[in-house]
């Protein structure tokens, strides 16, 4: 008994000391956003099947976490690419530069519609971004333009044309990239449509930012966790609640859920692709140029990602719920990818 235990221990120690000198890496490693994960994994699988080699490893770390790992440096034990559900920030770009990650290639892979959806059983609701802001902001201006704690209890308090049901929105927690996008696409734009806040933006941009970045904490907004399927299930159970999640989840659950039109535009594939639907965001993948040619297959992987087979309107990513880019934008992305043109960082913020 004891002898075998000792033997196992010796073996484990031996293996661990050997691992330090592992052979050169032959597998692509990608980290980052859990939203883009669902698409990048599909490409990784197709790439693995077509090449007969090893399938790339795609980690789901979140956009911010992915950037941190991505910007650690260049080398065999560092990630080759990162998924992002928003653009790289100036600060992140600088962190990368500092750590020696000089040439970053940005590939815009497609569009994700951020939808506000409800159960099909509920009475249909049509929203504007202004109404969304008035329903969810922690502070809203009163009649005189003074900021007060949000008094709206029901949707009809926000606007008489909306149904008289309690405001109840299920959405992602602050750690999620989807939440960041929701603030920028809905809350900021909604706030700008109120005159007093527009004035505030001119006078005190910081204070304005604080207004649209604060969501009320009195129970009208329910943080439902990172898992969008949880929100879907809760919406099925509660026909008066609304939920915030990506278009792919709405498409997959179209049998039970419907998306609320924003400013009269339904969240459909065509409306998101053409830019008519206002709650849409771009999705990205960032690649280290220094790893091209070093990590076998990385260039082919990028080529597979931007191919019509994957990214085109009939591509397999469209089947997974990714809204394809319009033709000109896609052509531009393809040019960036084939030429491996690095990001300059000038237009980041």
């Amino acid at each position, binding site marked *: *008994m*004891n002898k075998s*235990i*000792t033997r*196992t*221990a010796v*073996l*484990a120690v031996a*293996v*661990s000391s050997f*691992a*330090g000198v*592992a052979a050169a890496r032959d*597998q692509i*490693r990608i*980290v980052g956003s*859990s939203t883009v*994960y*669902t698409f990048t*994994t*599909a490409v*990784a*699988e197709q790439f*693995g*099947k077509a090449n*007969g080699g*090893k*399938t790339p*490893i*795609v*980690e*789901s*770390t979140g956009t911010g976490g992915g950037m941190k790992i991505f910007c650690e440096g260049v080398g065999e*034990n560092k990630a080759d690419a990162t998924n992002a559900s928003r653009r790289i920030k100036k600060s992140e770009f600088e962190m990368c530069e500092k750590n020696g990650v000089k040439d970053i290639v940005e590939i815009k892979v497609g569009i994700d519609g951020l939808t506000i959806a409800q159960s*099909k059983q509920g*009475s249909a609701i049509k929203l504007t971004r202004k109404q969304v802001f008035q329903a969810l902001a922690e502070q809203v201006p009163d009649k005189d333009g003074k900021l007060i704690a949000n008094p709206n209890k029901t949707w*009809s308090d926000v*606007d*008489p*044309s909306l149904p*008289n049901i309690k405001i109840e929105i299920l959405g992602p927690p602050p750690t999620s990239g989807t939440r960041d996008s929701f603030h920028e696409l809905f809350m900021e734009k909604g706030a700008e449509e109120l005159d007093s806040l527009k004035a505030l933006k001119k006078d005190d941009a910081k204070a304005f930012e604080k207004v649209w970045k604060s969501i009320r904490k009195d129970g009208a907004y329910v943080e439902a966790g*990172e*898992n*969008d*399927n949880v929100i879907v299930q809760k919406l099925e159970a509660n026909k008066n609640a609304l939920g915030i999640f*990506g278009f*792919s*989840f709405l*498409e*997959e*659950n*179209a*049998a*039970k859920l419907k998306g609320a039109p924003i400013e009269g535009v339904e969240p459909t594939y065509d409306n998101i692709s053409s830019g008519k639907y206002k709650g849409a965001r771009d999705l990205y993948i960032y690649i280290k140029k220094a790893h091209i040619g070093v990590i076998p297959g990385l260039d082919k992987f990028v080529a597979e990602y931007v191919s019509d087979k994957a990214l085109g309107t009939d591509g397999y990513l469209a089947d*997974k*719920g990714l809204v394809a880019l319009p033709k000109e934008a896609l052509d531009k992305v393809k040019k960036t990818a084939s030429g491996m043109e690095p990001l300059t960082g000038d237009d980041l913020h």
Partner: protein
Amino acid sequence: MSERAATAKALDVPRVKDPKKAALLRARYRAEARYRSYGVISLAISTAFLIALMSNIMMTAWPAFWSHYLVIDVPLKAESIDPENTRTQDVLRSADYMAVVRTALDEAIPGIEGRVARKQLREVLSSGAADDVRSLVLADPGLIGKTVKLPLLLSDDADLFMKGVGTRVERTATRGIANPSATAGEATILTSGDDFAPLLTEIKKKAAERAAALRQQADRFEVHSGQGAHDSVAQLRAEADELQKRYDSPDFEEVLDSSVPSVLIEINDGLVKAARITGRAVTGDVLIPLKSTDPAQAGAWRIVTYTTPESSRAVGDRKVAFLDRFANAGMIEKTFNWRFFSSGDSREPELAGIRGAIVGSVLTLFVTLGLCLPIGVMAAIYLEEFAPKNRFTDFIEININNLAAVPSIVFGLLGLAVFLNFFGLPRSAPLVGGLVLALLVLPTIIISARAALRAVPPSIREGALGIGASKQQAIFHHVLPLATPGIMTGSIIGMAHALGETAPLLMIGMVAFIVDVPKSLTEAATVLPVQIYLWSDLPEVAFKYKTAAAIVVLLVLLFLMNGAAIWLRRRFERRW
């Protein structure tokens, strides 16, 4: 008999003469009965919850353990697989098996024209169907040139439809003689009977119900809101009037859209989807071409209804039509889903399996056990038997107890900093996962091993020392063997804890999409609970069932491990 005596009897209280003492005694007995009933009630509640949870998971998981195949003749023509007759593995591997499968499909339902329709037909099958054909041909190139009956895997949506998620298909017999106007494109079917009248009435009734609902909504708006809603109120009323008008005129042609149950006509081996309907005629697109435009006798044609409206299900009418046709022809086969246990992860629900996760879990636990057991037991023996009792050992003991209560994500951060960044071990490797989990369960094992050693009676130790054994001999020859069952139980429970952990693995890169099944300790791998977490977050509905199935597998493994712990304890336990 007095009332008091009756209660006393019910509680089985011994009779005492002194009334004061008797009352006290009764109160004590009552308190005990109350306490017991609390116990029974809480057990009953927790059992009920457990059963509800388990049965829910089991019921959701059940469909995932089965998969459906379409069994059709697949022509493995040499000119499409290996036109130059080389028969080398490379050529056979890179051939377009999707095209082979498509040809077979087109032959199974001939005459499907148009890009959309053909795409829908192809989508009935999984992309894995072509891979299956490829591996079959690679294994036996002699099949080329023959036509083989092969099972082809259905796609996730089609598979779910076969499992009853989607819609029910109902068939109604007919009385009139039907006359189709065309075999393809748009067709009108006239019947000599009033076969469509009941359908028409039902649709009109639905319209009336909707009109009533719209009016109610308009009324509510008018009461609750002021001028602002004037337009929408008017709009609602207009919509309601329109619907009511349709209801009031029985001969008015009704348009069927995707919000009502789909109506189809099965005639002359073809299928027509009704778009417009009157009492005696139906007009719509032909989904499956008709053999001829000959009139069909009563009973030879049927009305088919898909009870769930098209907009409320994932599979469209056309796909349902194809699948229904295949199922009625007996071409669909249901088998146990071995693929679930034999393949790695995939983004296609019907192809995804847990082999990679199980192998990853086994490798990780192997490292954990290999490190934890010797180190934990040796530490426990030293601390319990040899170490002097002083402030320093007290400090170590407190630290060990504290470590057992540290949140597990902290161990992940430690692993990232020490094993990845300092020692440069590979990311996502079971080796690193095992090291991190070893840190996590080490305190549990040390604590349980110390308790087991302490439980061995001092007489054993003293007896051994008394006949001249050294301290080390006394411990290793006499105390440790007796403490083994307790140590084993503690270790297995610790391992079960490690098997269910995900948080520390996030930091070291094991929360990842990994298709290849790991073969060594340094290859990228994921573990079972991580696989569950990742699947639960995917949009495809079929992954919901896969998630539940993976949970069932994890529960079975945990059950086996904990069962082993109990069995070991029973088998080797000694009582003094």
